[in-house]
Structures are given as C-alpha cells and as structure tokens.
C-alpha cells in the first residue's frame, strides 16, 4: 500500500472516515443535534477542500477502480452539493431524532456514487449504483411522522428495484456477448450485434430511470413531493448529477461502437423529456413537485448536450451540472427554509413573498432566473454550451425545438417570480429568520450562480479535462 493508493482513493477514503467518525460519535456520549451538525459540516467542508488538491490519475484493483482529473472534479462537485444540502437542512434536522443516521445514509449514498463514477468494471458499476439507491430510499422516509414520506420511499424502492433489474439483465447480456466485464475491453468486442444493442437499450432504460428521463420519469413527482426537502434536493441534484456523469463517461467510452444506435434514441428521448417536463411543470402548484418537473426538463436539455460530440458533450454536461447544483440548491434552500419554519409548500402561498422576505425573494428569483437560462446568470451559459454541443451533429431542427421549449420554461419560472413580486396576498408568508448555516449555504449558491457564469476559466478548465474523451 503505497501513498499512491491512498491518494487515488482519497475522496472515497474521506467519506469512509467521516462515516466512521459519525458512528463512533453516536456510540459515545449523548450529544445535541446541533453539535452533530456542526461537526459533520466541518468535516464535509474539509472534504470539499481536500478534493481540490493532489489529484492524480490511475487505475487500481485490476481496473475495478479508475480515476482521472475529470472524475475527481465531478466527485468534488457532488461533495459541494452535499455540503450545501447539509447546511441548508439545518433547521429541519435541528428537531429530528436521527441526525447521525441521516448523515450516514447520505454519505453511504455518496460513497456508492463515487465508486460508480470511478468504476472500471460493470460489476463495480452496478454495485455502486445499488449503494447509491438503497440508503437514499431509506432517507426518503425520514419524515417519520408523515405518511407521504413512507409512500415516497415505497415508490422509490419499487421503481428503482425494477429498473435495477433491467440494468442487471442488460449487464449480463453484455457479459454474455462480449465475454468481459472490464470497461476498457468491452468496446473491443462490441459490434452491431442485435443482442448487444438490446442489452444496451436495457442498460439505457435502467440509467434513464435514475436520471428521470421521460418516459421513465413517472416516479419523480410523487417521490419528490413526499420526501423531506433535504432528501428531495439530494435526489434532484446530487443523485442525478452522479448518474449523469456516469452516463456520459460510459456512453462515450464503453459504448462508442454503438454510437449510430444511440443517437436517434437520445434525440427522441430528450425531446420527449423536455416537452413532458415542461407540460407538467406548467400546471403545478406544489413547489417541490414543480421543481421535480422542471428538473426533468433540465435533464432533457442535458441529453441534448450529450447527443453531440464527445469532448463538448462531456464538458458541457459537467459544467451544466455544476451550475445546476448551485441554482437548484438555491431554490431548494429557500423552499426548505420556508417549509420547515412555516410549513408552506404551495406556490400560491408565495404571493407577496417579497413584502415580508426581500432577501429570500431575491435569492429565489436569481435561482429561478438561472434555471430558466436568463443571462448573465450561469444558467444561461450552461444551456448555451449544451445547445452548442448538441448542434455539433448538425441536426438543427432538434436544437430549434429544444430552444423553443426554453421559452415555455421561461413562462413557468417567471410565473413564480411574478407571484413573489407582483401579486397581492392578504396572508403572506411571515418573515423568516435565517440562521447562520442556511444563510451561508444560500449565499454560496448565489455566488456560484453569478461567478460560474462570469469566470470563463471554469469552463475552459473543464473542457481541457474532457479532451481525453
């Protein structure tokens, strides 16, 4: 075990260390929830910071685990998302009975995601995927008093079990036809064999479920609505982001020989996703459900970017996920704060929000603008690069329809902004005092939304890392 070994596994090691610290803390003397949260947040912050240093590339354990600079960056983005979510759920967790368990579950999920991203072997990939789903289903039940929470967890488990089985079937068929499970060797054996294409479709279906691509998105709204806000934001941002990263890298490296087959599928899936996401989002009144559908539409956009060429596709997806982390978490942060303090979750209750909570209104507005894609927020640049990557294949009708759908999305995002600023309300949501940690988290998100748009170095850096794809 050399130092290289530790450096390569650095981020996974950090997570395991944190899980263990939590377990030991729980076994020790009784602590207040606040102290747990402070400790965990400090550890998570250290995790994010360490993630920026000493990045190396390499392969371990007979290609079970491989890493390169892009993967380290992706994992760090997820770490950042986790940290922000953790800070934002401060209010909700303060009165919860099972704080360390919550963190252990989420951190195990993250561990699974990391191994999934770094997988070099289909088996490892599958295991990582499972590890990233099951604890999350348990976490979805964490509003123990509410029936909706249990319902959400049930739906999540059923749907993910089913899609996992599809995925596993696909994996086994691929093993059967190529004779190997190792990522670097599979493309050598892939041809235009129909059985392999069939296996690929099954794999695609399994992954599509996790990223809520239509028509595999039906579980999203119910689960997002029922689960506690922290878990919803985790699902919506971190989980989706991780699977997107894997999707991108698997698609471009392992399934490159099948490129002709998946372009058409991606094209249709993405259009379907954008349109369905938009149509549903227009009619929503529950904020969490609304954000669920809007995130479905966003994923549709990401598929537009993926369908283009590999370097641009990969770079634009990573860039967009980073921006999506910030903007979505900002929106979720505001909602979680309002929901835990006042219990209000419906959009019509947000009318006149500006009169009582100007700061939160502005944060929410900026987040919605970034999600909609209004320049100069980062969301605009993210969408721009996605469309730019997607246009690489020359299918301009596709890009035009996607762009036109952006207009529809503008409608439902700006409807909320209008409600906040311009509508009258006799009983507006009362003034919410924002404690320190959520405040820090919200400011970080807003800073991210603004800065990532302006600092072009970030995109250039990501692009340079994806060159190898």
């Amino acid at each position, binding site marked *: 075990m050399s130092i290289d070994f530790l450096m390569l596994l650095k981020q996974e090691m950090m997570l395991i260390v944190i899980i263990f610290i939590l377990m030991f803390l729980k076994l020790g003397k009784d602590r207040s929830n606040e102290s747990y949260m402070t400790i965990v947040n400090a550890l998570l912050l250290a995790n994010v910071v360490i993630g920026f240093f000493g990045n190396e590339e390499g392969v371990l354990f007979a290609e079970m685990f491989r890493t390169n600079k892009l993967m380290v960056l992706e994992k760090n983005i997820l770490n950042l998302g986790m940290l922000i979510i953790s800070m934002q759920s401060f209010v909700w967790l303060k009165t919860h009975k099972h704080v360390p368990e919550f963190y252990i579950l989420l951190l195990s999920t993250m561990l699974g995601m990391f191994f999934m991203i770094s997988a070099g072997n289909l088996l490892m990939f599958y295991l990582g995927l499972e590890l990233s789903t099951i604890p999350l289903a348990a976490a979805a039940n964490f509003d123990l008093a509410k029936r909706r929470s249990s319902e959400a967890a*049930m*739906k999540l488990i*059923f*749907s993910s079990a*089913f*899609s996992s089985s*599809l995925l596993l079937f696909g994996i086994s068929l691929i093993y059967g036809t190529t004779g190997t499970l190792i990522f670097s060797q599979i493309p050598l054996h892939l041809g*235009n*064999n*129909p059985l392999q*294409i*069939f296996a690929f*479709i*099954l794999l*695609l*279906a399994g992954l599509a*479920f996790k990223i809520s691509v239509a*028509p*595999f998105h*039906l*579980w999203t*709204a*119910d689960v997002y609505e029922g689960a506690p806000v922290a878990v919803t934001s985790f699902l919506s941002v971190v989980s989706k982001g991780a699977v997107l990263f894997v999707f991108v890298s698997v698609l471009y490296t392992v399934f490159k020989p099948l490129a*002709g*087959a998946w372009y*058409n*599928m991606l094209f*249709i899936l993405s259009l379907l996703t954008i349109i*369905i996401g*938009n*149509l*549903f989002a*227009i*009619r929503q009144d529950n904020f969490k459900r609304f954000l669920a559908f809007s995130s479905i539409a966003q994923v549709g956009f990401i598929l537009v970017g993926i369908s283009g060429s590999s370097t641009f596709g990969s770079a634009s997806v990573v860039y967009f996920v980073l921006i999506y982390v910030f903007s979505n978490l900002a929106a979720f942060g505001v909602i979680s704060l309002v929901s835990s303090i006042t219990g209000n979750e419906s959009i019509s209750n947000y009318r006149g929000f500006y009169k009582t909570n100007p700061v939160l209104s502005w944060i929410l507005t900026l987040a919605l603008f970034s999600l909609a894609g209004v320049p100069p927020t980062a969301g605009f640049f993210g969408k721009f690069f996605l469309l730019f990557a997607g246009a690489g294949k020359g299918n301009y009708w596709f890009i035009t329809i996607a762009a036109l759908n952006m207009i*529809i999305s503008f*409608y439902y995002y700006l409807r909320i902004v209008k409600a906040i600023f311009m509508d009258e309300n006799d009983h507006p949501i009362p003034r919410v005092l924002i404690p320190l940690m959520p405040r820090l988290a919200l400011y970080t998100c807003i800073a991210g939304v603004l800065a990532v748009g302006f600092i072009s170095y970030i995109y250039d850096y990501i692009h340079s890392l994806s060159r190898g794809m």
Partner: protein
Amino acid sequence: MAKLAYLVPLFPLIGFLINGLGRKTLSKSLIGLLGCGVILASFVVSVGIFLQVKQDGFQPQIVHLFDFIKVQSFNIPFSFQVDQLSSLFLLIITGVGFLIHLYSTSYMHNEETQHYGRYFAYLNLFVFSMLLLVLGANYVIMFIGWEGVGLCSYLLIGYWFKNNNYNYAARKAFVMNRIGDVGFLLAVFWILAKLGTVSYGDVFAKASTFSTFDVTAITMLLFVGAMGKSAQIPLYTWLPDAMAGPTPVSALIHAATMVTAGIYMIVRSNVLYTMAPTTQAVVAIVGLATAFLAATIALKQNDIKKVLAYSTVSQLGYMFLGLGVGAYTGAVFHVMTHAFFKALLFLGAGSVIHAMGNEQDIRVMGGLKKYMPITHITFLLACLAISGIPPFSGFFSKDEILAAAYEHNKVLWLIGAITAGLTAFYMFRLYVMTFLGGFRGTHDQEHHLHESPSAMTIPLIVLAILSVIGGFVGIPEAFAHNAHALEHFLSPVIVKSADAAHGLDTSTEYMLMAISVALAVIAIIYAWTRFSKKPEIAEAEGAGKLLANRWYVDELYDKIIANPLIALGGFLKNVVEKSGIDGLVNGVGRGVNYAGRQIRLMQSGQVGNYILLMVLSMVLMIILVFYGNNLNPVLKYFSK
C-alpha cells in the same frame, strides 16, 4: 507622446462620470472646474501630440487599446490612429471646446446645481465621443463616436426638457441623424463584405481592388451619413431647430465640431473619394445647393440664432463643395477657420441674449454697441472673417475652395461667389440690426443691458484673435511660394488625385480673389446703409415671405414623410399587432395549457402503472431501434 493618445478622450470621460454621478452632491464651482479642467488637460495632451506629429518624417501611429470584436479571422480592434489629420482635429475640438466650456460656466450660472452638473456631464460626454470619432483607427470606432455625438446632441438640445417644443427639436435632430446613419452603416458593411477589414490603413491600401461600382456606392452611402450629420440637403432641417438648446451647445456642437464630423469622415476617406468622380460631383452639387439655399433663407430670419444656424448650414455646404472638387485641404482649412469665427459668433450671440434677458429677436435689439463693447468688437471681427475680407481667416479658406471650384467648373464658382456675397449681406444685416442704431426694445430690457462677465468675454477675445490670424497657416501660392503650411502638414494624409492641376496661374487667382472681395465689400456696404437707416421690422411679403418661411421645406417633409409613416404605424398597431401577433402568441399559450391538462392524466399515483408505462416505452424504444434502422441485421433476417 502619441502613445498617450488614449488620455485625450479619457479625461472628458472621467469628467462625464464624476459630474454625472455626483451632480446632486458636488458644488457648482467644483462641477465647472472639473468640467473645464478635463478639457484643458486633453488640450494640453493634444498640443503635445501635435508638436510630435508636426516633425518631419512622422509616420502615422496606431495606438492599440484592446481587442474589440474578434471572431476567428475577423478582427476589429479598438485602436486610435494618430496622424496629421486627427491631431489637427484634436486641437480644434479640445481647444475650442475648452473655451466654450469656460464660457458655459458663466452662461449657465442660473441653473440649479444638479442640472448644471447634468449639463457639464453631457458636454464632457460629447467631447469624449467627438474625440473617439476623430481618433478612431477604423470605421467602427468612428461610428461609435458618430453615434455618441448624435446622442449628446439630442441630450443637449433637449436640455431644458420641460419645454415640449425643445423635446421635439431634439427628437427631430436625432431622427434625421439616424437616417443618415443608415447610409453610413451600409457603407461600412459594404466595405467589410468586400475587404474583410475596416481599419483605415488596410482599407486604403486595398482600395484599388474595388470596382468602380463598389467605390461609388460606398462613397455615396458614406456621403448620406455625412448629409445627416453635417446638415446638407435634404437632411438639414434639424439644425435650425436645434437652436432650442443652450447657446454654448449650439456653438460647440452645431458650429464647431459635430457638424464637421461628416467633413472629417470624407477627408479621412479621400482615397476612396478620389476614385469615385461621380460621387464627388454629387457632393459638390449638393454642397453648393445647400450653401445657396441656406444663404437665401438666412436673408429673412429674425432670430439671431436662426440666422447663425442657417449660416452654419451654408458654410458647411461650402466645405462639401470644397470636398467635391477635390480641395480636401481647403475644406479642412475652412473647418478650422469656421470653428473659430462661428463659435465666436454664437458665443457673442449668447452674450447678447444674456444681456437682453433671453430675448432673441433682432427686431427688438439695436444700439447694443455702447453697452457691450467687447462683444461688439469681437462680433464685428467675426462678421468680417465670415464675409471673407482679407486678411481675416475666412478669406483664405473660402478663397481656396472657390479657386478649386473654378478649376473644376466655372458655374460652380459663379454660384459659390454669389453665395459668398449673400453671406456677407445677411451677416452684416444681423450685425447692424443688433449693434447699431437705436435700441428698439422695452425700457426694462434697456436697464438690464450690460457687458458679460469675464468668463464669457475671455473666450470671445481668444476666438477673435484666432479668427483674425488663423488664416495665415494657409497662405496660397499667389502670395508666397510654398507658404501653405496647412497643405504641407496634411499632405501625407491626402492623396493627390491624378488630374489635380493645381496650377491656376497667379493672375487668375488674383482676379478671383478680387471678385470675391469686391462682392463682399459691396454687400457689406449695401447692408450697412440699408439696415442702419431702416431696420427691417415689418413682416416679410412676397418673395421675402417664401424665404422667411424657409421655403416651406419642413411642411413639405411633414406631408410627404411624417404623416404617411404615422398612418402606417397606426395600421400596424391596430390590425397587425392586435389580431395577428397577439392572436398567435396567445393561441400558442392556450394550446400548451390544453396539452398540459390532457397529459396530466398519465400521472396516476400508482406505482404499478408507472412500471407498466416504463416497460411499454422500453418495448417501443426497442422496436424503434431495431425496426427503424436500415443497417439492422434483424431487419435483414426478416427480409430473407
């Protein structure tokens, strides 16, 4: 020193920002100090640049600031070109500009502090834009300045924004400018399309690759831009209306600088114009027609500023005449001398208006010379200069243009000379009715009459001195051999046309000079005698009425252009907008809403249904991939 060229526009920009942002907090004296100080600083730098440029063997320098537009191989840098032409214009703009700023500190003294600050901010912004215009190293930077001066002209004409008529005047100026700008832009696009570059150096070097049609079109379009900015027929009616602004504004913008932008632009593009004799003919004819028309209108105007406005239009016509016959140096010379005496005339008029308590009608003035000696003397000197009496500056510049016109076409010269006579006549009509004879105003006004404070009279004096001696930089061949310093100075920038004879023999030149001076003197004497005896107070009639109503040109424009456009706008608003566009947009919205409602039924809440739908879609996907793809072996299997 040329490397510091960026300082010249930078100072006024700083002045604009500080005065603009701080107009509610700074004191009036501080605003005035800052506003004038930055222009003075620019002037100092301009002098330094000029001294460097004046040395023999100076090559034009490009000072690159930053990349403005850079898309692959298409590059438009934000750079300044320091050469003889731009350094000369820098001096004129900053020098005359400084004097006018100084004058304004006293003229605008009665304004509220925040409006005072606003005035100086706009004035500084104007100088900044004008400097960008002349310093730019390519047509795009020139256009930025071009637009900027148009904007500032609008802002300053409508300075007293509470009066709606002034606002209409400002709007008219802006709109007419914009019409010209379309021509300018088309020309720039044409150049870009043909050559792929807009930098002066590159364009002029590659100019020989233009076809005649190209270069004629480009130069015509550029001239359309100049027509708008420099008030030539048919886009000149905004300038007299622009007199609604404060008098120093009229002096700076509508006499000395902005209106000369068109001339600058044509002189800068002289390489292109020499290649397009058709355009040059058009320029000359339009210029001459404008000069003549404006002079005739000025004969019957009774507002002191309107007379000067039409005089400006007329003199600009002269400059274009000069450009049209290839006398680029002459046109630049006239720009310079015109800046001096026209600014002086306007500032003097401002002094008179100030003394008369904001009265502008010359029919109620008279005999002001004993109350305002300095204003009187300087005004007289300016009138002599503009009439072309030697040895004042106007004589040299005007004569150079007329001599070049004579070489070209005797008819041009003839009409030009007649116009010169008319100029002398109406200027002295103005002078006599204002300063000589007895006072025709009210008793109150008479008590109020006084000489202006020194902040106003010092610029008058300086400009008067310049109007007197300014001509000596351009002494023609007839008087002294090789003494035309200005021509010598500008020769690297101006290409000599192949057939420029430049050899009127001395006797012809003397004769021409004699004729024009004689015409001027006769006109002066006639005006002096006629108007000092019987000032023209009655309403005009007959032919005079036509002139007094400015040939009804404004009314004509209203009828044939403005009214149809307004009708079209109304139609578009009521029919196309309401039924067509709104209907389409709202229809799309309704459609999407409907689709949303229908599709919602898919989300039933039962997991089993979800999974069923997932499987169904997967099956569909498989069918799509296998049976929708021609290269598929399974399909081949079925067709076996």
